[in-house]
């Protein structure tokens, strides 16, 4: 059948392969993505099959990876850049914010900045510093960019293809701690819209919203909450920017309570944005203020203690309890 089980890493690999098959202008570029297949093997085998001209092992400089992808876009190519780890995207920040995000506008629509910047993000793999960051809010805040994140192999497979096909630049955040988890991938079904959120689990009492690696944590929290008699509605935002606020607001209007989960510290984050927007849209429905469960406002800690930094089931449930504690 058209559905098969694979890891998220494999699903991304297959999605990239299909995107390259469909469009000869699609290139991949990044550090160690060719012969090695990437440090996470996401591009495994692709250089062998598509050649060194389409799967480009880059010299070691992120600003140049993104900057040359811009030039390639002007020439009509669509480049999928791989940033090896989240913490190494910052050298490219200037090119992303000043060029990638603005050139479509500056050229008055002549240049299409159809390029994808893949970033393995979030923590949870016991890595050393700079390998576990959540930079998505920097990009979400930047007009001209879009930011998406997959939480399942099926989404990984489809969303990467949709991102490659999209005409706006997309920051594609991959929850690296979920790379090796398996799931069903429907190879033929019509995929959900790239910028739509998905209700992963229906519930009555509290809407819990997150993305990337947090989705699984939220679902586990929902299991536990259920045992305690609280019914959580779990929403996978999928698109971090723009947010699918309609789907989210529908849920909050039903439950009256909101918890947002993210690994980034909470200040000026997507979590803040979701709370602010939904407070505006659902003011009369909200029976408690939207609460955020985030990383703490400290540099990402050494990984031996990262589990106490990242939002855990316990911390989500604690927020759920707090939100339930408000009178209605």
């Amino acid at each position, binding site marked *: 059948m058209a559905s098969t089980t694979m890891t998220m890493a494999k699903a991304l690999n297959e999605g990239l392969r299909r995107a390259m098959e469909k469009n000869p202008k699609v290139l991949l570029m990044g550090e160690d993505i060719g012969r090695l297949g990437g440090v996470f093997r996401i591009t495994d085998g692709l250089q062998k099959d598509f050649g060194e001209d389409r799967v480009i092992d880059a010299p070691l400089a992120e600003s140049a990876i993104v900057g040359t992808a811009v030039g*390639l876009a002007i020439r009509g190519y669509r480049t999928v850049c791989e940033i090896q780890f989240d913490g190494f995207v910052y050298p490219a920040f200037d090119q992303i914010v000043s*060029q990638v995000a603005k050139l*479509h506008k500056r*050229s008055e629509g002549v240049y299409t900045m159809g390029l994808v910047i893949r970033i393995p993000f979030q923590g949870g793999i016991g890595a050393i510093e700079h390998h576990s960051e959540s930079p998505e809010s920097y990009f979400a805040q930047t007009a*001209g960019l879009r930011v998406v994140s997959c939480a399942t192999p099926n989404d990984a497979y489809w969303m990467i293809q949709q991102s490659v096909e999209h005409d706006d630049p997309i920051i594609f955040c991959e929850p690296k701690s979920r790379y090796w988890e398996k799931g069903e991938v429907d190879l033929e079904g019509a995929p959900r819209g790239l910028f739509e959120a998905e209700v992963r689990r229906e519930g009555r009492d509290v809407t819990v919203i997150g993305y990337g690696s947090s989705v699984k944590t939220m679902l586990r929290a929902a299991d536990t909450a259920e045992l305690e008699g609280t019914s959580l509605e779990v929403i996978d935002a999928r698109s971090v920017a*723009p947010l699918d606020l309609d789907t989210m607001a529908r849920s909050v209007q039903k439950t009256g309570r909101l918890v947002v989960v993210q690994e980034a510290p909470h200040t000026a984050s997507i979590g803040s944005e979701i709370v602010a927007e939904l407070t505006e849209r659902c003011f009369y429905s909200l029976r408690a203020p939207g609460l955020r469960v985030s990383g703490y406002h400290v540099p990402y800690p050494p990984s031996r203690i990262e589990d106490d930094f990242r939002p855990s089931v316990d911390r989500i449930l604690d927020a759920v309890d707090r939100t339930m504690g408000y009178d209605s």
Partner: protein
Amino acid sequence: MIDEELVQLLTPEGLRNVNPDYESTLGRDEIVGLYRDMVIIRRLCNESTSLQRQGQLALWAPVQGQEAAQIGAGRALAPKDFSFPSYREHGVAWCRGVPPEDMLRVFRAVTTGGWDPQKYRHSVPTVVLGNQTLHAVGYAMGVQRDGAEEAVLTFFGDGASSQGDVLESFVWAASFNAPVVFFCQNNQWGISTPSSVQSRIPLSHRAHGFGFPGIRVDGNDVLAVYEVTRRALENARVGGGPTLIEAYTYRIGAHTTSDDPTRYRIDAEVEVWKHRDPLERVKSLLVREYKVNKATFEKVAAEAESLALKLRDDVLAMGRPDPITMFDHAYAAPHPLVDEGRREMVELGISGGSH
């Protein structure tokens, strides 16, 4: 200007200089053409400065003194080549066919671009110093993938030469042997910073450390700039890889109309460079060697004059854009926050929204 490395085909006095490596390939009409370009671009530049003084432009970045560097480089481009400027390359834009009024849109602050970069094969202005050099290398990588015989030319200044992006673009150009030519206008100053702060040795040498040729050319000698650039572009087109050209020149005017250069440099320096005027030396050559007559020069001047008047009219005709245009092309595909902004602006009565 005693500099053994400097490629010079015409002395400041307009005398031919024999160079074993470079020979001028241009005849009378072509040289007259270069002269015409330089006269026009200087005139347009002066008109722009006065437009700014009169409050009709938000800012202007004068090109005076650098006409030979820009026209020599710009005319060396083949139509199929692509160029990536910074913000001061009005002369190059002129060579590429960008209408003068389009060059001024960004300075009238009615756009951040101004022309169709694909139509003229000349990219939009880049204000963040150095960013464009990486775009040029990427574009050149695309040329390679297309198997096309095209070259890419990108411009930056002595100041920008210190930026990581410019230096990374050297690494990449060398690594991929990309068909790109880096054109550094060393006009001695990055606002108030002398180029000696950026490098104590000629900037052209920088390329050597990255494994490709760097050439220093007299940037006030349009014949030399033309030949050096033409050769480098041709070399790139046939797979010879990148070249760095340092055009040694001088910014006669202010950095921009916001700048006051008397705060940081002495008049005497400017005077010295005025004697190396790029237009005068070509004029001398034309008079002496080709017996070009007064009528021709007058015709050129008249043409420049009428272009300047037209430019003035065009600029004055540029009205304030409908604010709702700020939402156009922010994204290629529909975006809810853009729609929301548009809606709000119409509701506030700021725009009719019929855009």
